[in-house]
């Protein structure tokens, strides 16, 4: 469990990135921080591995205030995946995945063997093991990034817009992979994105942030859709534009689903047995 206790962060240039933020992120769940730029979502994420230290307030992991832990040791125990993968360009794919275990003193042979297995886990061909990151596609690099994040089998996985820079098709693929992985691995995932669709797909708990890290609403995707706290949330999840408000229209023998703009959203599958056919 990760706990933010009235955390604020003012950067040296005077920007108040986060103001009096309190939240509990339950273990073994995916919490998604959603907001536009300037909402402080990345700052919040970076507080969890002490890349950013709060100006006031504290962050606790399983009840322990992390300000008391040495940052380097803390970071080696937390998986971190960032946009543009952040891989080391001068290390092969395999060595990139093995980075953190090697830093923690795992013998090289062992670390590399484990890294090969992780390539399988994230759906990468082992033939890529000896390539350099610059020789991979954006999607492949992100997979390597995820594998690296998982390498020490951390309880907590921090993901900072990890799929933000890949094209929509690859992104959808990676999102599905993550859903599958999370089902098996059961990590405490903290995911930052500005894409509400991504948040709905991945999040158990979604936190919608206003500017300055103020919470607009916390809840499950269903909560946010069905009962948006205010116009800001409604607009963020798209409920105000009628894209989320659907009704059924009869077209000949079929029922089709239409949103309030009249845009076709899909076909109603009233009979599950028929759908399985």
């Amino acid at each position, binding site marked *: 469990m990760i706990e933010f206790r009235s955390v604020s962060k003012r950067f040296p240039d005077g920007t108040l990135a986060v103001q009096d933020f309190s939240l509990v992120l339950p273990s073994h769940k995916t919490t998604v921080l959603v907001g536009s730029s300037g909402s402080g979502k990345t700052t919040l994420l*970076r507080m969890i*591995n002490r*890349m950013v230290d709060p100006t006031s307030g504290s962050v606790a992991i399983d009840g322990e205030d992390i300000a008391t832990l040495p940052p*380097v*040791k803390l*970071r*080696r*125990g937390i998986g*971190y995946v*960032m946009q*543009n*993968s*952040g*891989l*080391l*360009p*001068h*290390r092969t794919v395999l060595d990139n995945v093995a*980075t*953190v275990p090697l*830093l*923690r003193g795992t013998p090289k042979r062992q670390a590399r063997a484990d890294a090969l297995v992780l390539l399988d886990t994230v759906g990468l061909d082992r033939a890529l093991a000896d390539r*350099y990151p*610059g*020789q*991979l*596609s*954006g999607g492949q690099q992100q997979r390597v990034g995820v594998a*690296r994040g998982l390498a020490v089998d951390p309880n907590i996985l921090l993901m900072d817009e990890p799929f933000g820079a890949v094209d929509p098709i690859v992104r959808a693929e990676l999102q599905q992979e993550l859903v599958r992985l999370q089902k098996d691995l059961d990590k405490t995932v903290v995911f930052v994105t500005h894409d509400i669709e991504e948040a709905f797909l991945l999040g158990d708990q979604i936190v919608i942030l206003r500017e300055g890290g103020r919470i607009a609403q916390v809840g499950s995707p269903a909560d946010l859709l069905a009962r948006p706290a205010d116009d800001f949330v409604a607009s963020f999840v798209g409920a105000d534009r009628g894209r989320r408000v659907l009704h059924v229209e009869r077209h000949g023998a079929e029922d089709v689903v239409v949103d309030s703009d009249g845009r076709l959203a899909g076909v109603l599958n009233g009979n599950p047995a028929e759908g399985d056919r």
Partner: protein
Amino acid sequence: MTWVLANLGLIWARTLDHVVLSLPPIVLCFLIALPLGWLARRYRISRGIILTGAGLLYAVPSLPLFFVLPAVIGTGLRSPLNVIIALTLYGVALMVRVVSDGLDSVDADVRQSASAVGYSAWSRFWQVELPLSGPVLLAGLRVVAVSTVSLVTVGAVIGVQSLGSLFTDGFQRGIQAEIIAGLVVTVGLALVFDGGLVLAGRVLMPWNRRAAPSKPNVPVELRAT
């Protein structure tokens, strides 16, 4: 040509002298410039002081420096140490800026992600920043190597033997072939040093070589033309 053939032994001996005088400054200046360049990049105040100091150092003419050094550090006027120290200073003057620029050239994202996954400042410098500034360092070191090989010849004027002695001797005795031989071998030696560094760079920085030709998103048919 007959002079050259008759004096191959002499040319070889001077070449070896030359190598012995050139190598230490190149290595030493790199080792000294490394912490200085790091310091120059690290703090704004030290940056101004170190980089300006290094620039001024390079402006000191070499011949007077060869004469002044013995007085300052107490070596003999004809000691090869004078040449080695003077050329180390010139190398440092060039390399400090190169090291600082090289460290600057490391992608901020990579640096941050290295910290985020748990590199300490120390291990990040040696395992991430230093290797990634390799291409810039190599470019600087190549300039230093070539200029050092050429500057060693000036030492001949104060009596420190090197390929430069072939110039001074050739001038004094009017042997043109000796002067030309000295010149050609010096240039040749500079090329050998340069080639050696390029080769070392390829061995030490395989990612740099392999990544270049297969940049993603470049259509194959475009690359063929």
